[in-house]
């Protein structure tokens, strides 16, 4: 098994000031606190995914996206499309942190009749589309990018996919069309956390070389450490400087990031946690320095 090195990592120079970076990182830590809170409510779940993607969501919701938490239907807003419904815990955390939903809503995560379903849908305010049935997000994002461009509106469209989702053929149909229509305000993030339901993608169905695949499809392709807020902002800045093509930012992330207890779980697609472990998890998160 050979590993393919990312051929063209963007320049490591952060496009933002240290102060801004520290603010984003503080938000990322808050998101992780929300994730742990929700996961503890149900005692199990996609806590690894939520922790792993907190850095991206902090960059998007507290640095990059043009949106109004008080006016979610603002037509010219940037849009974040979550393909991967089981990452909803992460998006709920971002929406709570942004003030779209009250913190008390966290206590309903996964509860019967609640707004915060374990795999969220667009019926929850702040969700642009319904993910969860994988392979939907990027096509919807292509449609939104086409629609906004046609109407001369300035929005950027962001879609978060998982590495396993690259096995869905519809993802590549959408990738083809995004490049065909030169949608340069479309950004796909691919979270490569190296875990899918039945194991590691290399064992389930090999998806590497991910970078070369997207490049061959005509996308402006970058591969970065997805738990590095500075690298994420730099990659987005590189997207700003690259017209004429859609952008894909492949994120190598660590599931459970920020809580070593969960980072080490071998099978961490869906974690079951003993009640006694939560206090330890929270202690580890607070000790972890961004």
């Amino acid at each position, binding site marked *: 098994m050979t590993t393919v090195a990312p051929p063209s990592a963007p320049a490591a120079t952060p496009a933002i000031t240290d102060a801004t970076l520290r603010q984003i990182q503080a938000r990322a830590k808050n998101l992780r606190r929300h994730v742990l809170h929700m996961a503890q409510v149900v005692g199990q779940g996609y806590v690894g995914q939520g922790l792993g993607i907190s850095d991206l969501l902090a960059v998007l919701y507290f640095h990059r996206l043009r949106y109004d938490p008080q006016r979610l239907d603002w037509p010219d807003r940037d849009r974040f499309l979550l393909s991967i419904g089981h990452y909803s815990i992460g998006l709920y955390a971002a929406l709570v942190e942004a003030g779209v939903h009250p913190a008390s809503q966290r206590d309903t995560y996964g509860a019967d009749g609640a707004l915060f379903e374990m795999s969220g849908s667009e019926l929850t305010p702040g969700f642009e*589309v319904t993910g*969860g049935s994988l392979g939907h997000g990027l096509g919807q994002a292509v449609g939104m990018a*086409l629609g906004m461009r*046609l109407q001369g509106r300035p929005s950027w469209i962001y879609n978060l996919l998982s590495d396993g989702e690259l096995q869905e053929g519809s993802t590549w149909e959408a990738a083809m069309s995004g490049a065909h229509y030169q949608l340069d305000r479309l950004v796909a993030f691919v979270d490569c956390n190296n875990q899918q339901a039945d194991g590691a993608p290399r064992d389930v169905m090999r998806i590497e070389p991910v970078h070369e695949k997207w490049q061959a499809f005509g996308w402006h392709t970058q591969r970065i450490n997805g738990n590095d807020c500075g690298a994420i902002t730099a990659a987005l800045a590189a997207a700003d400087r690259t017209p004429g093509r859609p952008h894909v930012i492949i994120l190598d992330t660590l599931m459970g990031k920020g809580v070593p207890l969960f980072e080490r779980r071998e099978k961490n697609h869906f974690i079951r946690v003993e009640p006694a472990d939560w206090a330890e998890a929270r202690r580890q998160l607070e000790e972890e320095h961004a």
Partner: protein
Amino acid sequence: MTTTAPPTPGVTGNILSSDTLGATNTAKAPFGTALVALGEGDPRIVGLTADLGKYTDINLFAERFPNRFFQMGMAEQNLIGTAAGLSRTGLIPFATTYCVFATRRAYDFIAIGAALGKANVKIVAGLPGLTTGYGGTHQGIEDLSLMRSIPGLVVIDPCDATEMAQATVAAAAHDGPVYLRLLRGAVPVVFDPATHRFAIGKARLVRPGTDALIIATGLMTARALESAQALAESGTSVAVLHVPTLKPFDREAVLELVARIPRVVVAENHMQSGGLASAVADCVVDHGLAVRLARIGIPDCFCESGSIPYLIRRYQMDVPSISAAVHRVLGNRP
């Protein structure tokens, strides 16, 4: 025991033609023409296809509004996904392909991508039922069944050119996802455009009668009217209820007539199960009505290829077969 007619060499017909079957009064490309007219008045109307622009008449829209038309290539999942995305920016996308590709290949995208969130997507799907001589790959024989089962999706099977055009306008005006079966090319005119009024969810008594009732949808209504005319000449009075909207289903109209005329033939350009006959049976059973019901439609099989006249005889969807079914429900000897 089914007997198959021996093949007739050289008589294959044009298997790509639409189902004009010798009709003299036809209108050309009613969907494409109606969509262009809509597009003139409403900049929100956009079009997409999956490499079937020419064969779904949406090429007319593409030629008139090239900037508002998106060719998606042979990728039906993305066709529907992209249409849903377009609708979420305030546009009204009309996406075309064939019934088989829309409903078989892109089912999850219609159900979850469009219908779950009530995205304002219009899917216009060609080659419904036996309107193509291509075989099982191209004949949309179970699309109504699949689409009827999706919550909140409007499902329409127009009869003729008049209704095709009116249903296109109604689909655009409806806020929500619509699945519209397409009749394309030179399409017979059955209903007078000056007097016919299509409305989503409304059935229409297109011929009164007292002895038996034919409930029909799509192009089968034209054959039902021919059958009723022929039966009238031999002294049998047959009503014809045209039900162009499979969902939402006009239960009141069906129940009112069935209660009065409980000898019913259901005729549809679709499998006998899962479409109109099933919808009728559902509401009849729900209301405890006792009826004698015969089904005209495709049995539980994939169909052959061949000319359309051959196919509709083969699967007993022609006018004489409808008349024979009326006699059956009336208890007449053959």
